[in-house]
């Protein structure tokens, strides 16, 4: 317990001080927080529940559009904003900006949750690869359809309100960093709390054998929907923050970006280790560092690298970093190992 408390304190202190230690990387650190949120919430489906979804990008994009639309629509006519390209005609005062952001983030978190609850019953009845392909279709359909809606900018995109002119040059980066870090802490606390209850055991039962879980008297559908709604809540929140951070929303390249973010979250969770609390966090951090390095030094080849990376990780490293550590040091994970048995197994191989 005390060991864990020290670990959390160190991470918290590091998280709170890092924008001042690395002032040049504030945006990158904010994006890292968002990536960790996405990977952690994907893990609720893919890792714990065994439902490999490509569709969480739907909630992410939805949250992004909702947050920006609310932020603009509270004070100015939305249609004129998108038509004029935003910032040129209307200017948010600081109080308007922060009020709009607060309400926007709330809406961005709640509406996707409701959407997940509504579509959950139909979608989560599918199993295995049908579920995967169906959610893939859902994400791409959302991107294509939102790209045709005029009021949110259609094909030419949607400029989110620019940060007001308060608190000097560093204020924008610090605001978004602490916003995303706060969201990350919230996510981590919530997910950790969830993983210490019976709910997690039910999710694992669904993953291991859904029919048996149902035969044991668990209302699997209810828990699957709740699990999806939890994911949707935090994905929407992350999307809202990311929209403000990027400053520009495009339907298929930023919001419903199944080719980037939608795959990233799956990849990060698998890289770190599915079905563990820390796996997605480690995976997201490693992936983000790798990605930024590659994106900077080999610009243009990033998708080639991404494609190769996906294939390599999926084929040769499906258990992830945490899985590998667990294999290597089972004692650290609280597993009792019979040495003789282990040796016998090694010999068998």
């Amino acid at each position, binding site marked *: 317990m005390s060991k864990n408390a020290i670990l959390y304190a160190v991470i918290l202190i590091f998280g709170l001080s890092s924008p001042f230690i690395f002032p040049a990387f504030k945006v990158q650190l904010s994006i890292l927080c968002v990536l960790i949120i996405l990977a952690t919430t994907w893990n609720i489906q893919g890792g714990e529940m065994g439902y490999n979804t490509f569709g969480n990008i739907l909630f992410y994009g939805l949250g992004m559009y909702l947050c920006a639309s609310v932020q603009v629509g509270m004070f100015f006519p939305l249609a004129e904003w998108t038509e004029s390209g935003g910032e040129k005609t209307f200017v948010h005062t600081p109080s308007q900006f922060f009020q709009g952001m607060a309400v926007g983030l709330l809406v961005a978190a709640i509406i996707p949750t409701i959407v997940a609850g509504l579509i959950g019953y139909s979608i989560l009845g*599918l199993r295995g690869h049908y579920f995967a392909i169906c959610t893939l279709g859902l994400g791409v359909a959302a991107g*294509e359809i939102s790209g045709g809606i005029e009021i949110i900018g259609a094909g030419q995109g949607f400029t989110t309100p620019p940060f007001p002119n308060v608190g000097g040059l560093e204020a924008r980066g610090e605001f978004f960093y602490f916003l995303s870090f706060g969201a990350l802490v919230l996510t981590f606390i919530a997910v950790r709390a969830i993983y210490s209850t019976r709910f997690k055991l039910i999710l694992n039962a669904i993953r291991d054998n859904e029919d048996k879980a149902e035969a044991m008297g668990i209302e699997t559908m209810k828990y699957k929907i709740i699990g999806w709604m939890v994911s949707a809540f935090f994905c929407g929140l992350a999307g809202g923050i990311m929209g403000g951070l990027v400053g520009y929303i495009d339907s298929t390249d930023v919001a419903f970006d199944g080719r980037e973010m939608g795959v990233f979250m799956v990849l990060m969770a698998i890289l770190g280790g599915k079905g563990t609390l820390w796996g997605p966090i480690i995976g997201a951090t490693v992936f983000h560092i790798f990605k930024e390095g590659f994106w900077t030094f080999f610009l243009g080849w990033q998708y080639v690298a991404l494609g190769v990376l996906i*294939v390599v990780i*999926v084929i040769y490293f499906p258990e992830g970093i945490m899985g590998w550590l667990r294999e290597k040091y089972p004692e650290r994970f609280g597993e009792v190992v019979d040495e003789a048995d282990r040796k016998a197994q090694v010999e068998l191989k």
Partner: protein
Amino acid sequence: MDFMVFQYPMITVQACLDGLLLGILFALIAYGMALQWGVMNIINIAQGDLVILGGYIAYFMYLYGIHPAWGVIVSPIIMYFIGVGIYKLVINKVVDRDLFISILATFGISILFMQLMNFAFGADVVLANSGYGTTMLFDNNVTLPNSKIFSAFVSIIFAICLVIYMKKSKLGRAIRATAQNARAAKILGVDTEKVYAATFGINAALCGVAGALISITFTIHPYMGLPYTIRSFMIVIVAGLGNLPGVAMSGMGLGVFEEFADYILGTEFRIGSVFLLLVLILVYRRFKLSRKREYLK
């Protein structure tokens, strides 16, 4: 929303004919999908990208002054070897594993191909002009490019050839045996590894044919692959594995649906409506099966 399509019967005829001819192409791609799904139990997300790659082969022949219709012969031959290469490098490691692994691995291949094609051929929308002209029907009210008729004709010929090949040849029988029971086939002396490689190669070759035809009839673009994958997946789940007439029918049905969606909703919602239809079909099947307390497997 534009309901002109219902007020002028000629537009309806046009949409139906376009859709049917387009659907035959979809059915050809879907047949490849059904083949690999049935035999190797993998879902290939890179299917659409193989189609586009096949299209670029025909387009390149066009650029170098060869008539692109020859791409129908050349493209499947090249694509067969590319398919076997992909099998040897990646697919043979995911055949026995979880289906999700195959989905994710082929998703990686799809991203890789997209970007490599973008580097090699540029991000422009291109088409290989066949110069076949157009046919006018019903007092010039319905225009039908001859290239579309040509492509439908070629697809049907290829499909028939493949069906006969699968029925009669030794490899075809081996493929069907492996699809029924891979272990039993192995015991009876079928080299399943070879069969898998050949199946993936044949699938890629079919994609090559379809791609060459698409580059003649429509346009190709490096990032256009995924909709073709989704279409073929949809056709296969509607028709069922190993049901060739069903694949042809549902392919044509999808083509007609798309043309009407194009007219009624507008071109910007065309791809979106395809993906939405996939979701609706899956949800419909899920409710239909859940009445019997079953689920899609």
